[in-house]
């Protein structure tokens, strides 16, 4: 349905482009203060990593040199501590880490794999060089397992659709992020969206169009997410989508970190992932 509504501005843009009614303009936006952006995901059995960056004025010049770009973007020199509800604390080191496997960058990380446990609450405390304090907390939710992944080939075609079944946890408000990818997790997801369980009785089915061919690898991931993470992801999507769509309402980022001029997300990751190989 969102596709359908996006269709209107696209159709309009195509019409207008044909009339040469577009031009580049100079815009002077209101002055603004930079914001500190936190991105940290806790996952049982994985090292703790955190990315601390700063926002830039929308049209601020972007350094051509990569090192200068990183220096402008990354916020270093902060003290970052994660605490568990039982009092253990883990201080992250300020090192730039390039994870070859996930292709992600972090500037704060722990040496050891911290014992993150499901069902427990963790808090984050960041003290910046200027003394500003940024805090956040999160609970690690249980995994909602994928019940089954069903691959169905079209009768008349060689293409298949993939149906993903899971059972919603009863008597509670649940939020999910559904991701499906071809071949590898490094590819851009075919579907990546968040949903809540308000319209669901018990079994949730996610489906795809008939897009997958024989021999394909399909990776299904269902994240069970907190409401704060759901709100954050939705607000990020709306903020991105409203650029250029005159019919959309922009959204500020709904963040779960507190502190002067701070925003971002601190959340646990609880997901089930099923890799399916389509028969040749």
């Amino acid at each position, binding site marked *: *349905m969102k596709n*359908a*509504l996006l269709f209107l501005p696209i*159709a309009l*843009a*195509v019409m*207008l482009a044909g*009339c040469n*009614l*577009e*031009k*580049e*303009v*100079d*815009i002077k*936006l*209101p002055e*603004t203060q930079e*914001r500190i952006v936190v991105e940290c995901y806790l996952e049982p059995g994985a090292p703790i990593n955190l*990315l601390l960056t700063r*926002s*830039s004025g*929308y*049209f601020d010049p*972007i350094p051509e040199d*990569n090192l200068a*770009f*990183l220096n402008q973007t990354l916020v270093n020199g902060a003290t970052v501590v994660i605490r568990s509800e039982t009092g253990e604390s883990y201080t992250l080191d300020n090192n730039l880490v390039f*994870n*070859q496997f*996930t*292709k*992600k*960058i972090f500037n704060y990380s722990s040496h050891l794999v911290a014992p993150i446990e499901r069902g427990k609450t963790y808090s984050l405390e960041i003290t910046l060089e200027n003394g500003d304090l940024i805090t956040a907390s999160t609970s690690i939710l249980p995994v909602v397992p994928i019940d089954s992944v069903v691959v169905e080939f079209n009768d008349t075609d060689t293409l298949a659709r993939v149906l993903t079944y899971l059972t919603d946890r009863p008597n509670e408000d649940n939020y999910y992020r559904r*991701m499906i990818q071809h071949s590898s*997790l490094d590819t851009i*997801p075919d579907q990546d969206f968040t949903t809540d369980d*308000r*319209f669901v009785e018990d079994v949730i*089915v996610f*489906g795809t169009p*008939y*897009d997958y061919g024989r021999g394909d690898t399909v990776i299904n991931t269902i994240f069970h997410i907190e*409401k704060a993470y759901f*709100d954050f992801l*939705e*607000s*990020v999507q709306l903020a*991105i989508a409203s*650029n*250029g769509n*005159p*019919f*959309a*309402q*922009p*959204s*500020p*980022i*709904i963040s779960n970190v507190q502190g002067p001029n701070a925003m971002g997300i601190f959340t646990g990751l609880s997901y089930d992932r099923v890799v399916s190989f389509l028969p040749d």
Partner: protein
Amino acid sequence: MIRFLALVCCISLPLWSQAQDFFTISGKVQDQENGEVLIGATVFSPANALGATTNDYGFYSLSLPPGDSVLIEYSFIGFQTREIRLQLDKNIHLDVELSSGVQLDEVTVKANSFQDQLRSTEMSVDVLTTKEVKAIPALLGETDILKTIQLKPGIPSGSEGTTGLFVRGGASDQNLIELDEALVYNPNHLFGFFSTFNTDAVKDLKLFKGGFPAQYGGRLSSVIDVKLKEGNSKHLAGSGGIGLISSRLTLEGPIKKDDASFIVSGRRTYVDIFTRAINRAQADNPDYNPIPDYFFYDLNTKINFKAGEKDRIFLSGYFGRDVFGFDGDFFNFDFDWGNSTGTVRWNHEFSPKIFSNTTFTYSDYQYNIQNALTGFRFNLGSNIRDANFKSDFYYAASNRHTFQFGLQLTHHDFTVGRLRAGSTDGVVSFSSGQNFSGWEWGAYISDEWTIIPRLKVNAGLRLSGFYTGQTSYWGLEPRFASSLSLSDRWSLKASYARMNQYLHLVANAGVTLPTDIWYPSTANVKPQHSDQVAAGFSHLLGGQYFLTIEGYYKKLYNQLEFVDAAQLFVNDDLEQEFAVGKGRGYGLEISIEKKEGNLSGWIGYTLAFTERGEFRTLDPNGKFAQTGYFSPIYDRRHDISVVAIYDISRRLSATATFVYGSGDLRWLPVSRWTFQDVYGGSLQPVVPDYRERNNYRLPPFHRLDLGLVWRFFPKWGESDLTLSVINAYDRRNTFFLYFEPSFRKLVMGDIVIEVPDRIAARQVSLFPILPSITWNFKF
């Protein structure tokens, strides 16, 4: 309320007894050429210095002392004044026909038209006739009464090309738009480029921005009353036109001469015929992207007949649809929306002094989107249906008091966000939607009281309410308007109105879309209400120019905005996306108008300030980051419009309109940041950071439109070629802005990430210089 009624009775009783010495002349004033009733025509007795004007149904009632040869003048702008002498020794029923054509006493007529405006308690009112509308240049030659009214001061439109109306700081849902007394929920075709009103079928449009008479209720900011023609009761007539994008045809005529008539009017756009042909011709081209189909059509019909000396019945209907479709190999899409309305109206003269209008109306607005994508389909729609009963009484108790009273009852039936979606075989399936219903009611009384000939007051009270089945709301709406004539050339006016509104439009501020949802007041969503005061003066300059200056201040309560990151679609609990706050608007409107002579038109200027604030979310977990007051995107500081119509000869007229407005506001991001996301998620190198709402003012908007009407007078009737040039100096006004980042690769060992390289701001405009030609005819 009881005190008020008692007061009205006390005031009026002595007047009834006084009126016993008088006799009453009553009836209708009509156009001799086609039998259409004339609204606002003047009936005047010079000897007694007493007069009356015809009401919205052409009815007048004038009480005068007896006399052997009492002279009565009937006049109306653009018509010959008619003088009739009567022996007044009893009540007289007299229907009078006026003829247009050469003015015998042009000066008198001109003065009268403005004198009526000077003396009337009505203020903050704009009236447009189809004649004016047809003279003004129109987009692609499609004359549009709703677009033209936006050229009047105090009524800025939404974005360029749209018909969203933001009257005196009000939102786009606060306009009561009635077509022959039936409510029209969405007055737009093609996302607001054109309105649903076919100019050929419309008689006139009256827009109240303030000083609302008590018979109107249900919206806060304006009343737009569109009256359809009744149909020529003298002879068969037709009119129509062939334009660049549409054709239209109207037929009207007597069913029984002077007693019954009909009018049928339709139009349809035909761009789709060409686009389909292009698509067919390119069917074999694999690189060709088909052009979506689009067309709209509407049909107006009306029949009226005399059901006796004192009764007349009217049946009218409107049906219009926009159809937008795309049919591709893997994806198809159908989107249609439209209104239908039906009206049954009964006019009855109980006595020479009492006239009633009783109306049953039905209104329906719906949209439906169907979308199919290999193996998946969805169907989304919303619908609002109203059945309405209304009875209005007009009682000319004396020449000093005219009472109006009546009641209204409406049943609303809403289907909000009905969605059926899933795979075609039903394995994946979900649905949502809510149904609501409610009763809206109102009762009112008002008195137009001539305290002394120079001082008139219109005081009224409306009691209105809404009942959902669980929750009930009601409110009193006092109305007051007064006019003090200082001389034949000067008058002062002041008004106050409280309005209640029980329905809310769930829409992005500033953009009117067919998918906007009407939502009723509920236990949590309280009715909107407003208080508006306005004061001003009018001055007749040199007998030809009419100057009006008005200031207003308006406060709005229980205004809805969306929370941050609101989920507007597929949401069975929309209320949690609402934030409720207040609004205020104040400003000054200046207009100078010339109606007669070779050169006519007006110049309007508006200085306006509009703010909204103090928003609180209905959902305790909801977020509304904006604190304090902020300007809505339609907070237009300066607005200028100039309309000039110059009749060069009987055959040739030239027209020009110029509009200038301060730029509207937009909510733009002030900074950007990078979102890395989890393993598997996509890096977003540029995420806009939106903070204060509506923080950027677009460049000023201005545009000159030119028109030339070349008339022909063949034996069978009249025709003209209308040439329009929209945006004559090819100004690129901003429709919307967007930011276009370009990226580069940042390589660190094996890791390659995308980082922003440059961000460009781009402006999209809607119209270049757009010439068009239309051929119009009537017979």
